């Protein structure tokens, strides 16, 4: 399978380990990633808070590149990126006048034929059963708390993915790979996101609450499909411990666990870049 690939800023910056993990995982699944040539920022929170047209134009340019490259799907591992791309795509579809105007602004013809996928949707299109068949080992030791954060399922009308209040698609995949996901409360609670830069204490409180809930629910790790969530839960865990978090909680990307099941090693996945050390029993399937 060939799909377009839009890494976004996080995967080339603060979360390079996510990119390593995603690329390794996709390679193992025979999914070829065609990175968009000369991609730009998705606009993130900044654009849509300031200027609506800009918030459509930035992702629209990326969609235009994908169209030029004859790609049918664009995979954006960051849920913020995939949401912004999808939102722009929907708006361009709904309003031909806007589409024409944005086309002119970004100097790229826009048709609107590109589908946007998040990480889980890529796994879904490969097929959970196919992944399970390719698995080399079982994730028996893993009792993950699957953490979706805010943007994977929201806004529901835009992303139109899983149940916004009680998503279960990660649990389904990981169960097939032998893990025992726990039922917990904080699946879709905010990780604190960008406040990590201006309200460290606030983010620490969120992280503490989320991780304590994971531990109380019997989890031995947290799995996410969002670079922002992973960074906050991992990097701010030291602060959460000062607030009383009982023990270390390793924070994985979903692609890490799938990769381990497929027989990849921690080296392939940049585990050494994580703040919270990953215990030996969780380094292999």
């Amino acid at each position: 399978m060939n799909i377009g690939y839009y890494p976004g800023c996080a995967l080339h910056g603060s979360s390079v380990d996510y990119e390593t993990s995603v690329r390794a995982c996709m390679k193992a699944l025979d999914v070829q990633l065609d990175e968009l040539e000369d991609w730009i920022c998705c606009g993130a929170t900044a654009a849509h808070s300031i200027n609506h047209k800009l918030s459509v134009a930035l992702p629209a340019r990326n969609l235009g590149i994908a169209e030029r490259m004859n790609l049918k799907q664009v995979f954006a591992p960051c849920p913020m990126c995939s949401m912004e791309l999808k939102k722009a795509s929907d708006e361009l579809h709904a309003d031909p006048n806007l589409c024409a105007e944005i086309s002119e602004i970004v100097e790229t013809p826009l048709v609107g034929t590109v589908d946007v996928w998040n990480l889980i949707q890529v796994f879904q299109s490969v097929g959970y059963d196919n992944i399970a068949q390719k698995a080399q080992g079982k994730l028996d030791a893993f009792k993950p708390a699957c953490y979706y954060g805010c943007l994977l399922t929201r806004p529901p009308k835009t992303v139109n993915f899983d149940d916004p209040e009680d998503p279960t698609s990660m649990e389904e995949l990981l169960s097939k790979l032998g893990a025992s996901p726990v039922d917990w409360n904080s699946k879709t609670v905010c990780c604190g996101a960008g406040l990590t830069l201006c309200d460290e204490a606030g983010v620490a409180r969120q992280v503490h609450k989320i991780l304590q809930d994971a531990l109380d629910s019997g989890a031995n790790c947290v799995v996410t499909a969002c670079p922002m969530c992973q960074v906050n839960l991992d990097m701010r865990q030291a602060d959460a411990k000062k607030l009383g978090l009982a023990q270390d909680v390793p924070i994985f990307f979903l692609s890490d666990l799938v990769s381990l099941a497929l027989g990849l090693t921690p080296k392939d996945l940049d585990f050494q870049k994580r703040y919270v050390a990953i215990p030996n029993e969780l380094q292999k399937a």
Partner: protein
Amino acid sequence: MAKIGVFTCWCGENIARHVDVEAVSEAISKLPGVACSMNYKYMCSEPGQSLISEKIKELGLTGVVVASCSPHMHLKTFRKTVELAGVNPYMVEMANIREQCSWVHSDKAVATAKAIELIGIAVAKVRRNAALQPIKVPVTKRAMVIGAGVAGIQAALDLAAGGVEVILVEREPSVGGKMAGLSETFPTLDCSQCILTPRMVEVGQHPNIKLMTYSEVEKVDGYVGNFKVTVRKKARYVDIAKCTGCGTCWNACPKKNKIPNSFDYNLGNRGAIYIPFPQAVPARPTIDADNCLRLQSMKKGKELCGICMKNCGSQAINFHDQDELVEFDVGAIVVATGYKLYSIGKEQENPNIKGYGEYGYGKYKDVIDSLQFERIISASGPTGGEPKRPSDGMTPKTVVFIQCTGSRDNAKGITYCSKICCMYTAKHTMLFKHKVHDGAAHVFYMDIRSGGKMYDEFVRRAIEQDGALYHRGRVSKIEEITVDGVKKYRCYGADTLAGEPCVVDADLVVLACAMVPSDGVTKLAQKLSVGYNEYGFLSESHPKLRPVETNAAGVFVCGACQGPKDIPETVAQASAAAGKALIMLSQPYLTREPEIATVDEKLCAACGACVQTCPFKAITIEEIRDRKGNFIKNTSRVNPGLCMGCGTCVSVCPSKSVDLIGFTDDQVYAELESLLA
């Protein structure tokens, strides 16, 4: 030769401001067949009507066109005027030059030209009108009331008091409906059962009321005044004529207190042979076949248990009981099927409605709905009126009430206000505080809707005297947590007046869920040809002026099946429906508008297209035979009692052998010709 009088109304300024009525009259007077063309300031007024009748008498008019408002408004008025002047009332046509012309155009020249065209159409039609006679149909002086909650009970009692025989059909084993399960009622806090049970007993004993409990409407045939309703009397396995209601059987049942009781919304238990609650009417038990050891064993050819039968002194138990179909001839039907509460669960019957994942989709035992809370605080409930939470029987100290759960929530697919939740939530806080004096009752609300006599005072009393804590804001999430070994429900809410988050750890959460129509109401509505809205609430004929009639003649609605409403309003509407039905049943015969479909039986090929399409099941295929009884051909035939004159059959008939009297093809083509001329 046709002599048509055209009377153009100014409607004060309504028409005259944008339509040049003088120019209209002048132009119309030149049309063929028009004997006079007048205008007047208010044609519906006494002098206006006199003008019409004077001209009829003076010129010997054969037909009249009134160019004014919508026929919905005044067609009846002008038909009466014309009839009194000696002309057949169906020789009147109205041209709507107000709603469809003066009100929607601002350019006077355009509006005037359009008015002339509209009137021209009406003139072309009226020239082809025929004198018609209203249809007379006989009336069966018996009524059926479907649903025996407070609405059905009230309607049945009123009809019975009016001297009409009533068949009261209820699908549950007892009458009483939702109200029988309530604790106290707002705004007086009088005991719901205390005020309802005398009425329940009365319907059980009234000589004019035939009670059909544990029964459902299977089929509805016939038409206004002459319905034929088939009722399925479900197998009860107890002969209620022999049974004395002594209670030996349900006390002896080995499944006693082992099966969730739906009357208690599964918070309490009953046996396999049971009465749903002590005040049930009839106070006779029912056997739940799915849970009865004997009935289950009989499926496998064995005869286990049977303890109830062995203990019954009056031999009332019959394990071979079967469903029975009973047919009733009735003249009018009152639908009072009530409501149920919206389920917060993930699976919803209506795909447009979504549940509440943020409240756990119903997986938390101590997150209950308001009807369950009614049972918990009701003296006849599973806890004997002691507030105890379902999970562990603990007396809750902190209760969170969440209003508008489902209601007014576009994201969940229900846009309407359920109307009664603000009031019963205030009541719940009071009842809770009266029983748990040191308890805290937190209410999360969007805004308080307490319109009604003594209603707002009641809410203020809850807040000011009983100390209910009201927070204006929504709860975004409920989490189950454990604090010192005790389960709590952390409610993440907002207090938007204080402008801050408001988190409450509750022992019990009560959701004021939206009211939705009870199960199966849309199927029943289809059997009755009654309309319903996207949520399944039955449609009244006119929201203001015909609130209990439906578009199916002879079928009336009352109570929560028509829309969310409280007890006083339900009772008032039930009496209104009974009153309307009594008016209908008091006539020696019914007259109906003659504008119905008619089949040219010579042309009809009996293809059945009209039979399929008729929404009122008014068309059947009949045989034509000669005098000797030899079969000649089949034809479709319209039942004049059932036909509502919608004209759907006319449009589907491939051989053009159906026509709609009063709107014949001849008339419609003439109208079109006039427009295109």
